[in-house]
């Protein structure tokens, strides 16, 4: 089953490699991993999307907690949560496709953030499935390049992860 795990960890050199090293050493899956400092510059927050049986997920959270740099671990999938991912897509936009591309982007509440006479760069935010749907909706051959951040997640309502 897919799980989305949030980790607060010391913002120190090597902390990221401790986490990624743990996943590769123990053979856990990583679908995506994002990390950046929080409003408290001494802490980083990481969102890991992974999958595995309940036993494996239990081990993942325990092993993460065991890392000395890790302050807190929460499996967001245990409760209500929101996840968002950012995608940038560069598409060919010429002739009648140019108008169509703009329309689809609007439907998905995306934004065109860079324009040349031949292409658009589109910014799109949402859950991973929405980004997938967008890529399906446009002409595949028009896609020149895509880049995705991987999911960031946060608990709903008063579910708060902090020190």
């Amino acid at each position, binding site marked *: 089953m897919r799980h989305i795990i949030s980790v607060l960890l010391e913002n120190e*050199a*090597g902390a990221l490699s401790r986490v990624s090293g743990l996943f590769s050493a123990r053979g856990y899956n990583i679908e995506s991993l994002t990390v950046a400092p929080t409003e408290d510059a001494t802490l980083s927050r990481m969102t890991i999307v992974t999958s595995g049986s309940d*036993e494996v997920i239990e081990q993942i959270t325990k092993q993460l907690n065991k890392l*000395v740099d890790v*302050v807190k671990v929460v499996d967001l999938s245990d409760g209500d949560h929101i996840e968002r991912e950012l995608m940038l897509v560069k598409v060919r936009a010429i002739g009648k496709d140019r108008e169509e591309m703009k329309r689809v982007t609007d439907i998905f509440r995306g934004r065109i953030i860079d324009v040349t006479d031949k292409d658009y760069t589109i910014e799109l935010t949402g859950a991973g499935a929405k980004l997938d749907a967008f890529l399906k909706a446009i002409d595949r051959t028009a896609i020149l390049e895509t880049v995705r951040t991987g999911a960031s997640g946060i608990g709903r309502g008063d579910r708060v992860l902090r020190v």
Partner: protein
Amino acid sequence: MFNVSALLPNNPMELTGAEILIRCLQEEGVEHVFGYPGGAVLFIYDELFKQNKVQHILVRHEQGAVHAADGYARSTQKVGVALVTSGPGVTNAVTGVATAYMDSIPLVIITGQVPTHAIGLDAFQECDTVGITRPCVKHNFLVKDVKDIAVTMKKAFYIAATGRPGPVVVDIPKDITTAKAEFRYPETIGMRSYNPVTRGHSGQIRKAIQLLMTAKRPMIYTGGGVILGNAAEELTRLVRLLGFPCTNTLMGLGGYPATDRQFVGMLGMHGTYEANMAMQHCDVLLAIGARFDDRVIGNPKHFFAEERAIVHVDIDPSSISKRVRVDVPIVGNVREVLLDLTKQIEAGKHEPDQEAMKTWWAQIELWRGRDCLKYDRASPLIKPQYVIEKLYQVTKGDAFVTSDVGQHQMWAAQFYKFDQPRRWINSGGLGTMGFGLPAAMGVQLANPKAQVACVTGESSIQMCIQELSTCKQYRLPVKVVLLNNKYMGMVRQWQEFFHGNRYAESYMDALPDFVKLAESYGHVGVRIEKPEDVEPALKEAFSRKKDLVFMDFVTDQTENVFPMVPGGKGLSEMILV
């Protein structure tokens, strides 16, 4: 307004990084550092030279330094300290670090590093120490500012020794050892990201007791956690209070007195018949400071073919429900949990089902009657088991016994009856050949008056034999008990059982003359070829209080370790003699 200190050209309170490092070791009460100098640590060695509180032990290979620090730590419960240079110094030390990590031994390993400005430029003797050691340390640090040395060292010792212990590497670039800073050693340290638990959850403890009291066929299975957690006394009290059978893992030997009637021997791949049968057929299992590893429970599917309730006590939550599902997990310091369990059982009105216990013990005695450790005592060849039995008698069961890895290790574990914790010192998790001799040096340094035996094989001993030189330099009277069958015995045994007697590369031709070798290092060497000479040789060796005596026992080449649970088989599917 002006800053006075800015006017002083040289703040007299400022020390170099190297001085600070040595002061930190002194503050931690470190008496011995095992190490080997090199370019990146020259300033540290210079400071070691100028003081005499911390004694440096010069090994002959960095692997030996870490194993020696490891043996030191295992035999004393202090944190062992090693000091090595950058690059090859570190890579040589890695085997030692991984050994300590697998067995949760508290060590601080200080490694030199090239100067900060050279890091990442493929400098001479540079390696990514923090990267290389990351998967085999509890934690590691790269110190980038001289001001951080003191607090980093404080953290290193704290992390190494608390919670589930483990090795911590502190990597210090050369320029940091010459830079200056004020020295203040923190008295305590708090880390928001590191807070090991101590007390077990009281509700869980109650549940555990309820389960134990309903047991018809209970079993207590304990591991290295009881030794590391200094809980042998508390365990013994609880086991006697309950009257249940108790088994120890390879790492847990000495946690419960081996000569006691309630002890059913070691369990696992080479465990006793009675221990493995009781483990397989029990209905309530109390596991304490043990981790159900593959050498202990055999095939997990087979293990779970029979139903049993499991209570698992461990300080490391990730050890619980890792390989087996557990019914009552208790996370906590084993000593605290054992005390709580005992207190509540004594205060409660319930006691174990005596009728059921009688039946269960009768069954265990039947298994015990199988005499699974028997061997041919009439053989004209020296049987390795016999040597260990005699070693046990001659040392009155009071020696520290280190071992390498293989058949000799299993025989030592089976035949030397450890009644006390921290006396059996071996590489259980990583299974590192070459561990025994350097570990024995550390044990002997920490326990100068004690009898220290290194039980080894002719293959293992050669992996760190250079340390005989260190033993000479520091006059360490270790007794080397070499069970020489000219084979990598355990490899040979597997080849005999599972590879059609094809002894691929397990016979070692061209062995050195170990007697002459020992003598060339300045020690006493002796070869023993007949069973009747075993005991006199051991007596003579242990009467030489000041000498390292290297005993080369020429043993039966075909002897195998029994019982044996073949890989992939269930615990009760043992090959018996």
